[in-house]
């Protein structure tokens, strides 16, 4: 927070450190996209810059929302998102073999994106309403499972495994922090071990293949193992200092597929090397740490759980994507927020950041005398 007589108070009271950090990540993304297009603002960098600017503005304006307003909107937004997800199932736009979008004229809306912050707020709100003594009772659990399970299943059948995993992880994080008993979290891990082979049978062909090639990437070097193999080549060949800006052969010669979306990190690591990659990871870590601090300093239980859940959402975005492109996790289609080309992830992360800023402003106005 900057205090100065010159800068008007509303501006001075913005969390500038966070905004600059986010802007830096976004700028890095634009620079990478400029290179990925072969040294051109089109088709990605310019559009991404505009999207980024619009959503950053929205996030900043969201920071003036009151906690009570957020709380009041939580259930209606959750309900609306759920309805949209059902709508997608019924009349969704079919693209890339999956039903993910609602075609609303000029805008293609992907309702599952809204579900990430929505599930966090909803569960935070739910557990705020549950008295402390009731938290480990069954009646404090099943509504939470229902609130999480229904949208998760709707997203899974779209099918969008990446988003489904994200939504479940965000919800589970909030439930974990709310104090649900340990076994609730330990049991599913054990169950997954047992159920994995069975679930595997029900997966879609392409999902199954992704898992196969993840477990044994060499089995299909020219097919679905190609993405991971080429991504590892891009990152590995970059070395410590990288091949130099605009000199990444893997991305420029199209060996790296999706070098501007899901695999944008590999594009960056190839040209900027280990140094650039680590700097980016640190920048994300700072953002997440800031969100976690908001949660630690929160006065209300809703703010505590919501802030932690929202920062966890950003964390899951970043970590799943990076594990994916470095070959530590199967390719599930999670973009790197703020860097990957595309509006959805930018929108979701900016919504989370806007909410976090609002919660942070609330703490300051509640605690300080200003």
């Amino acid at each position, binding site marked *: 927070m900057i205090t100065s007589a010159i800068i008007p108070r509303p501006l001075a009271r913005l969390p500038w450190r966070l905004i600059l950090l986010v802007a830096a990540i976004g700028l890095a993304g634009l620079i990478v996209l400029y290179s990925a297009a072969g040294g051109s603002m089109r088709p990605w960098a310019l559009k991404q810059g505009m999207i980024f600017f619009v959503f950053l503005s929205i996030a900043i304006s969201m920071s003036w929302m009151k906690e009570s307003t957020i709380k009041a909107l939580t259930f209606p937004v959750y309900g609306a998102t759920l309805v949209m997800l059902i709508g997608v199932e019924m009349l969704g736009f079919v693209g890339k073999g999956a039903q993910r979008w609602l075609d609303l004229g000029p805008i293609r809306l992907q309702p599952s994106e809204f579900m990430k912050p929505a599930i966090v707020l909803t569960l935070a709100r739910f557990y705020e309403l549950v008295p*402390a003594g009731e938290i480990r009772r069954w009646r404090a659990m099943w509504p939470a499972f229902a609130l999480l399970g229904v949208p998760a299943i709707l997203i899974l059948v779209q099918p969008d495994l990446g988003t489904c995993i994200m939504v479940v992880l965000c919800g589970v994080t909030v439930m*974990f922090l709310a104090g649900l008993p340990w076994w609730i979290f330990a049991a599913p891990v054990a169950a997954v071990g047992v159920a994995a082979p069975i679930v595997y049978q029900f997966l879609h062909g392409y999902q199954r293949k992704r898992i196969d090639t993840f477990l044994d990437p060499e089995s299909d070097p020219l097919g679905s193992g190609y993405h991971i193999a080429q991504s*590892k080549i891009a990152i*590995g*060949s970059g070395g*410590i200092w990288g091949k130099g800006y605009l000199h990444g052969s893997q991305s420029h*010669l199209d060996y790296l597929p999706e070098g501007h979306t899901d695999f944008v990190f590999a594009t960056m690591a190839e040209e900027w090397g280990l140094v650039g990659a680590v700097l980016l990871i640190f920048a994300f870590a700072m953002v997440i740490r800031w969100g*976690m601090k908001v949660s*630690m300093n929160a006065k209300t239980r809703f703010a505590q759980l919501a802030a932690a859940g929202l920062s966890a959402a950003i964390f899951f975005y970043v970590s799943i994507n990076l594990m994916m492109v470095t070959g530590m996790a199967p390719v599930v289609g999670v973009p790197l927020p703020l860097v990957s080309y595309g509006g959805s992830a930018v929108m979701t992360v900016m919504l989370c950041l806007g909410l976090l800023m609002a919660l942070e402003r609330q703490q300051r106005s509640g605690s300080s005398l200003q």
Partner: protein
Amino acid sequence: MKPIRLTNTHQSLTFSRRMLLLGGAQAAVGGLLIGRVGWLAVAQNEKYQLLSENNRVQLIPVPPRRGWIIDRNGKPIAINRASFRVDIIPQQLEKTRDVVPELAQLLALNEDDVERVRRELAESRGFKPVQVAENVTYDQYAAVTVRLPELPGVQATRGFSRFYPDGPAVAHLVGYVGSANAKEYDAEDKNPLLLIPGFKIGKQGLEKSLEPYLRGTPGGQRVEVTARGKLVKELDPKPDRSGQTVQLTIDEGLQQYAARRMGDQSGALVAMDVTSGDMLAFVSMPAFDPNSFSEGIGRTEWKMLSQDDHIPLLNKVAQGLYPSGSTIKPAMALAFLKQGVDPKRRVHCPGGLRIGNRFFSCDAVHGSVDMHQAIEKSCNTYFWATGLITDPEQTTEMVNYLGYGQEFDLPIPSQRFGTMPSPKWLMKKYKREWQGYDSANTSIGQGYVLVNPLQLAVMPARLASGKLLQPRLLMGGRRKPIAPVDADPEHLEIIRKAMAAVVNGSGTAVASKLPLDGVQMAGKTGTAQVYRLISRGHQGNWNLRDHALFIAFAPADKPRYAIGCIIEHGGFGASAAAPIVRDSMTYLFDKQKAWAALEPLEKQWGGSLAERNARQLAAFKAAARPTA
């Protein structure tokens, strides 16, 4: 489940603890990611850099030019001729555009070719070119070249194809080249060079045995390409290195002359330099045209060659085995001398000899002959009779020592060396004792005796020089000192004199005197029975006639060259083989006289070798064409 009472303080404590855990887990994941990127970028950097470079840079291979084969005077025997070819680089093809029909039209490809190109394109990967056509005409090449901008992926290049100026005359000596087959590809550990269209390897003869020298190392154009195979830019090309030139001891002129002199006959001729063992001619006729093979032989031509009863596909020098006939007699005589037979010893020839219960009949009634006359007149009775009083083991050993049945170290793949039988050999091979009739058969070069045409030249060369010459085909290299023949020089002189008399005295080959002043040829005729027929000599049926052989050296007094020759089913040695040897020998001393002798003969046969070959193929093709 037992309900647990929890207070707000309790809840706050749980939250802090779990936040700490969550934060720790996040930090751990962050550390793990940094570690992973560090591992890929630092520890495995080299590996991935290589992989990325392999992605980026592709090589359009350029096969090396094959080394030349030249004769002892530097005249070309196998060279490379510019040829034009059209290939397709599959990765540079635009997927939406089918260039094959267009090429088929430009190059006048037939349906089989089009189908082959399509199949190879479907199977192809990377930058390995797929051959569309080779040896296209300049006009076709030009037609494709001007359309190249509209035909992405098509490559029209000037290549090189093997060319043998002497055609069939050198066919069996040099062999031919051809595209590698699957077996050859596997044998070379799947050397990718062998898959380059237009790349040929030696298939036969010297082309095969000298492959390591002739091949060279490939180069190529290095290009930077995208994942979709679009060419981004050309990098520095990798230069190729052409194969080495190999110089042979062969005299190209003699080789060609002897091949032409054989006319339509089937036979082999080997000429040697008596001072060094250098092989001057290595002729096996009739032969195929190796140029047809290097361009991929047509079905019709192949059929013609394989149906010919003169077996043009057989290398008769290295693989033909024949009874030596009387050409064995000089060596036999030397063996007799060595065992103490007096050269003045006379044997009466009443026209044959009874051995056991069989009567062996001689060609004529020679009367009383000594060794000199026996060789000169080729009297079998003398050799039968003398063979019976000498040790057959020692005798045959001597003949073998002089070359018959012996193995020579030559860069000719798959040679057959024949047999020089001896009592020991007979026991080992057929488990029976040596009999008098074995001596008789062997001493006139029949029975088990089988020699190749190479040995027919080595034996007179050794007799003439008195040195244990080893035939050589490659110039250069270390020349080993040549050991003398283990025989009394006086004995050798007796043999040489007798051989000189064969041609210049009143012997069997007087008709084949050299038409030169001051140069006399010494020789020995041979007639080898093909079937045990009562009546010998000329037969109506070509392949029942006797083989004609002749061995010779010249000049008789100061030997310089030796020649061995066999004409299959040529009748008497003197009638078919000796004149060919005479003219070939003349060539070595006086080229003009030799060519003058050949001219009327070729006119009589109906043109030069090349002309007759072309006519024969055309006639065969016309006969093979289905009648409309």
